[in-house]
C-alpha cells in the first residue's frame, strides 16, 4: 500500500478529500475551512474520534487499513456525489488510516452552505456513506488483544434513509 500519506483531490472544485497516515488537528482544519468560506452562512461538521473509555473492555488502540487502489478514489467519488446532491459552498472530508489511540481524530467531515439544511444533510449523508461504503477495515486492541470489527446492522439502516 504505497500510497502517499496525503493527497489532494483533483478536479473537484467544491470538495477537498484527504486520506492521512498521520494525526491531524480537527480544530485547525475546521478553522481553515471556515476561513476559506466566508460566503457560507452555515458550516456543519462531524468529528469522529477514538473513544477514551475506562474498564476492561476499553479500546487501547485502533488500526484502520485501507487499499490504496480503491479507498481514496471511493472517497473522492462520494465527495463528488455529495457535492452534486446539495447546494454547497465547500465540502471537506479527512480520514485517517493507520494506528490511532484514544482521543485521536479518525474522520472529519465539514460542509459549508448558504442554507443550513443543505449543510446538515450533506454532512450526514457523507458520514453514512463513508462509514459503510468506503474501503476501510478496522481492528481494535483491548486488554484481550486485537480484534477485527465486522459491519454493523446500523450501517445498513443508516443507508436506507437516503
Amino acid at each position, binding site marked *: 500500500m504505497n500510497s502517499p500519506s496525503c493527497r489532494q483531490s483533483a478536479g473537484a472544485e467544491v470538495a477537498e478529500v484527504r486520506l492521512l497516515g498521520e494525526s491531524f488537528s480537527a480544530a485547525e482544519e475546521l478553522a481553515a475551512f471556515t476561513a476559506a468560506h466566508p460566503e457560507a452562512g452555515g458550516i456543519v461538521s462531524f468529528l469522529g474520534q477514538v473513544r477514551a473509555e475506562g474498564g476492561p473492555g476499553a479500546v487501547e488502540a485502533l488500526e484502520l*487499513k485501507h487499499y490504496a487502489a480503491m479507498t481514496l478514489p471511493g472517497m473522492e467519488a462520494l465527495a463528488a456525489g455529495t457535492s452534486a446532491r446539495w447546494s454547497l459552498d465547500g465540502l471537506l472530508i479527512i480520514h485517517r488510516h493507520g494506528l490511532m489511540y484514544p482521543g485521536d481524530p479518525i474522520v472529519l467531515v465539514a460542509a459549508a452552505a448558504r442554507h443550513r439544511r443543505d449543510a446538515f444533510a450533506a454532512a450526514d449523508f457523507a458520514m453514512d456513506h463513508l*462509514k459503510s461504503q468506503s474501503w*476501510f*477495515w478496522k481492528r481494535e486492541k483491548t486488554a484481550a488483544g486485537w480484534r477485527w470489527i*465486522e*459491519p454493523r446492522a446500523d*450501517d445498513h439502516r443508516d443507508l436506507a434513509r437516503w
Partner: protein
Amino acid sequence: MFLGRLEDIAGMGELAVNPGPLEHVLAALDPALAVELLGERVRMALNGALLGDGGGVVLTEGDELAFLPPVSGG
C-alpha cells in the same frame, strides 16, 4: 492483495502469483485460504475495479487482484 482480516488468515498482505485464469491461481493457494477467499461476502477487485464474480477472469503480468472482506462498521 489480502485486505482486512484476510491478511491475518493468509499470513501476509500480498502474494505474487503466476499469471493465468483465476481458477488456476486459486487452486495453487492453500485450500483453507481459498475457501475464505471465495466466501460469499468477500468481493474481488482487479486493478482497483470491483468484479461482479470471478468468471472468466484471466490474470496477466502486472495485474493486481484484491480480496475485500466486508468493511468495518462505525
